[in-house]
């Protein structure tokens, strides 16, 4: 039972911390881009492209965390072994 509770806790913490960090990272990146474009509108194209790549990479980090947390809850690789161990006791 503790194993399952631990898994759910880990899943919640994983996606919570990841979303928090990715949100802050994206916000900072966008803020910097806005400041850059406001100061130098001619550089908008270059800033857009670099920001697009950066945001895509940050977003994929958050999606990875989501998948890991969902795996922990619904498709845990050690779930069968843990259930078998529980049944043995």
């Amino acid at each position, binding site marked *: 039972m503790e194993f399952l509770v631990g898994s759910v806790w880990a899943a919640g913490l994983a996606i919570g911390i990841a979303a928090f960090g990715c949100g802050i990272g994206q916000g900072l990146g966008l803020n910097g881009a806005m400041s850059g474009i406001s100061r130098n509108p001619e550089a908008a194209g270059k800033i857009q492209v670099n920001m697009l*790549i950066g945001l895509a990479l940050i977003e994929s980090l958050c999606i990875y965390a989501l998948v890991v947390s969902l795996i922990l809850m619904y498709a845990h690789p050690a779930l069968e072994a843990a259930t078998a161990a529980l049944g043995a006791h």
Partner: protein
Amino acid sequence: MQDLTKVVDLITKSNWLLLVVLAMVAVMTTSMSFYLGVLAGGLIVAVNFHLLKRTIKNSIRPEVVSEKGRSLVGHVMVKYYIRFAVSSILIFLLISNHIVHPLGLLAGLSVVVASVFIVTLLVVTRLYFKEAV
């Protein structure tokens, strides 16, 4: 500027190319659920990247930035959270119903990251050889 736009186009094309190659490899060498995971994950991130590109191209323009300023950050972030929520629901359904293999899904979700790395390597290599000549 032209070169940078080309880089984004190259990343977009390599996303689809990599997805097709990965899906073909998966369908030939692995199980059906792994193949479905690669396909679903790749489609989710490729469409996400496409939508992100459209949001940034439409929102982050000098004339709009000077008019609306910081409120655009919120606009882009709201769209990000909507995209993320839709992707989350899709991934949740795929994993909780055991439709796809989780590792296949992770491989599929890595398509955009992998293509960014590949394109970066290509650009750096081209730059390096151009300077060497």
